[in-house]
């Protein structure tokens, strides 16, 4: 399907905070209580509309375990946005945010939009991290903050879409150089100029077409 822009996202955070579930809820609108451990990365995509424009989100769900951090690091570079997720019922996942943030800032481009997500807001009775603490952390580090529940779908749409909105605004302000692919943004086919000849003719389009989502 045609799109005006394509944004690349990554989802990061400790293991078991619900990264894969957030992605599944956003792309498939369902919740799966038993989930395979993510090794390396998983991929998902969805189309959204901002400001009347079709925007394709490509989302890479990374492995939270320390053992697979080498793979995760490869995805920082070239992402336009990141959802940094912790689990409101596990204090240690909140305590690790600083490390995640440092890792992300070190390896990503400086304009990457980071959204802080406190997940599992449905488990109020087991809450260990107050909402105010999440807000304070976000304020201190210049992030956008939101509590979500991948189980009830609360705020899940908003989390992904608000991140996209912020990236979109940054594009409008000219902060992102959209011609540099390293920024994780691509202009859709109908927007690109001067590429007409190569695009339609498919000079080198003989490669395998995998990942046929969207």
């Amino acid at each position, binding site marked *: 399907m045609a799109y005006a822009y394509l944004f690349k996202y990554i989802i990061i955070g400790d293991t078991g905070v619900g990264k894969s579930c957030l992605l599944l809820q956003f792309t498939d609108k369902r919740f799966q209580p*038993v989930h*395979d451990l993510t090794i*390396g990365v998983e*991929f998902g995509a969805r189309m959204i509309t901002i400001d009347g424009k079709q925007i394709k989100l490509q989302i890479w769900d990374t492995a939270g375990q320390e053992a697979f951090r080498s793979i995760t690091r*490869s995805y920082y570079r070239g992402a336009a946005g990141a959802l940094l997720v912790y689990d409101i019922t596990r204090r240690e996942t909140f305590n690790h945010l600083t490390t995640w943030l440092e890792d992300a800032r070190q390896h990503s481009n400086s304009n990457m939009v980071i959204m802080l997500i406190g997940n599992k807001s449905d488990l109020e009775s087991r809450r260990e991290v107050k909402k105010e603490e999440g807000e304070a952390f976000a304020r201190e580090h210049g992030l956008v903050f939101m509590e979500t529940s991948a189980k009830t779908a609360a705020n899940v749409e908003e989390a992904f879409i608000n991140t996209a909105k912020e990236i979109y605004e940054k594009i409008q302000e000219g902060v992102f150089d959209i011609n540099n692919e390293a920024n994780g943004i691509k202009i859709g086919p109908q927007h690109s100029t001067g590429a007409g000849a190569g695009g339609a003719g498919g000079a080198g389009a003989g490669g395998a077409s995998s990942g046929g989502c969207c």
Partner: protein
Amino acid sequence: MLSRFSDVLQTAADVLAPPATRLEDFEYHWKMILNFYERFDDNCKIHIEDTKIPHHLHQMLQLIVDEEKEQQGGTVGPCLEAIVQRSICLLDALTALAAADRPPGARSLALTAATALLRRTKQPCVNSVHIYRPLQRMLVQCNESPASPTEKEEVELLLTLCGLVRKEPGLANIFTTPFVEDKTSLLTVPEDIQKLIPLKKVHTPRKNPLFVDLTQNQLPNVSIIRTYDRDDSSNGAESLADDVSCKSQKTLYDENDKFLLIDLLLSYLDSADNQVVLRACEGIMIVSSLPEEDIANLVTSCSPACETIVDKLAARYRRIPPTVDPNDVDQLNITWAYVAQDFGDKSYSKFHGYRELTTFFSWLDYCDTLMKECHQSIASHLSRTFRQNFLEGTAEAGVTDLRLAVLATAVLSKCLKVVDSTDLINEFSNWLVGDGEVAEWPLLHTLISNCLSDNYDLALETLRFFESIIEKGTEHSMERLVLSRVGTRGYCREPGGGGAAAGGGVPAAGGDDTDRDRLNDLPLWRERETNREAMKQLQHEEHVSEQINDILSHEGLDLGGHAGAAENIHTIVNSYLLLLPRALLSDPVGSDYEHYIHDAHRHYQYWLDITSTFDWPVGLTGNDNTASSTHSYDSRPEADIHIHDAYYNNNNNSEQNLDKQHNTKKETKRYENDEFDEGPFLRMLFKLLSNMPYQPYQVNLHLTSIISKLALLPHPFLHEYLLNPTLPVAKSTPTLFKTMQELAKKLTTEIPRIKHYKKVVESTRLQLMSEDPSYDEVGEHNQLVESLIVLEEFCKELAAIAFVKYQHSLHAHG
């Protein structure tokens, strides 16, 4: 979907009868699977997804996951225990299904089920023989054809196993030949399983690296001793299993051993499906990043991983069409991990050769990332292989082949620009400039002569390449390119009679003054009396002087405690800013000067950081006083003596350095008898510099950019050689400032001959500063005037650099 459906069934069943125990359920589903195969007709073409097998498998899996949640202290529940004890030989059955692929789709299902078991359970007890043995069989028997329809599932299983090994390195032994050497057993299905699941026998895999005949070319044994000794008490399954997790056991590997896990992953790198390739890449990275030395040795010595990875890079390089526009190369910004997805997009082609270039650079990015993440010994091995098999074996020919040289240089220059891992940068630099004590390095000479080529496209790309080489500066490449000659200070004619580099005759006493007079002997000086520009020139000089004073006092560097030093820096800055007569200047106000100072600050800090670990002489050592320490960067001739002394004093401080001191002295002596030779690289730069009026603007731009980078380097000798216009040198010794003066002289003579030259200069400047990309394509350029503007800006830049370095030395020591 199935899970929801089964939940409904379960609920219904619970109402009718009291729930069975979990193990009973587990046994029930197992029997249902066996029943199916008991009655199975081999001619049946029904797809496995249309049978009940997936449902039963899923239920069994779910039961294991459920029971694990209830287990305390890492014990194993009854369902998994049944598998570990092989009272229910589920994994053997899965292997039989995978091998036979009956009914159609069974292989895919079996692989997925095995993967799910390993990923969904926290403790899959892989160290148990009844778990790992079937897994070995499955790996060996499924990896038979490169484009198998189940390659996605196969590579997922492999990646999962990599993940397990990453978390429990002892498991690596399960995937090395000492443990899988029993090939016949691996290729058959155990008899009891054949009875339970009576399917046709499998054939021997053809492409499986495990079955390569090793009887020929026996290699000497190199032992890799596994001294892995870890206390891990959390694994309760061990007591149940035949323990081969080798946690505290020594295992010998020799070169004939294979690391099955990596070898299998390598075979998927050729897949046409980018997602499969990506998975294989991830698996290799996960295993390679283990900190265990012996696993790293397995990867480098028992698997062709490094060679295969570099060969793929070389193959991708060779596929770049020779007709690619070299200018397109620099635009690319590729991340290996994202390319697999991007390639699904059919519109993903921006220019001719885009996909080929992307394929190549994404693989380079993978190599680079792998080298940053992997174990140090893998990184060393991989970077050596990169040099031998890619740079020397593949790329070098392109640089020397004049038909291909422009594109080859552009690609290599981009390669060097994007790589980030230390090992790779080092090997790359060493390949370019040569290593060891080799005096002449053919590749470097080729590159230098390419810079001097009449083919300006080639000259430009090669200059860009050198720019990358300097930007990625390694101590070795700096040494080879510039410092090996300058480091002797052979350019310096010692004041007081040594006449070190006098060359063609010792000049008379007071030669300094003669030299300076000669240097300042521009036509304009003589014409001053008659030229109506003279007054303006004088005013201009005063203005520049005032400006410099302003800056000096603004920075707190007025003539306080460092009167002499400040005066010196004033002289130096003046030499650059007044090199060209005012009448020719396109921007006499010098409004950009502050801007240049700002840039120079930033860049100098960058170089200080980069070179902080280099074994370069600093200005002076700690036992010298502050006043003299400023001298190294104020470039006074008398300060040079201090540097010289300091250098040797420094060496004397440590016994280790005595040899070096000796060598340096010997070298100095050798050069004392010869004329100073600035070396081929600096010679090329000076030659291009004096040739500026006849070269394209872009060439000149990159040329001056390279020189200013060199001038920024915090090396005291290179600094004084490049940045001290008042340095006493022999007449025959070329310096940057002399070359610039010659150039200025040439321009001063020739430009006024152009009709309305002031207007031409003005309009050319406007055009160049507008950075309009179409300007380059317009045919008619006044190269002469363009080179004037480049020189003018270059002067400001050098003045700023000299000033910033001086200022920094004050701050550092004051």
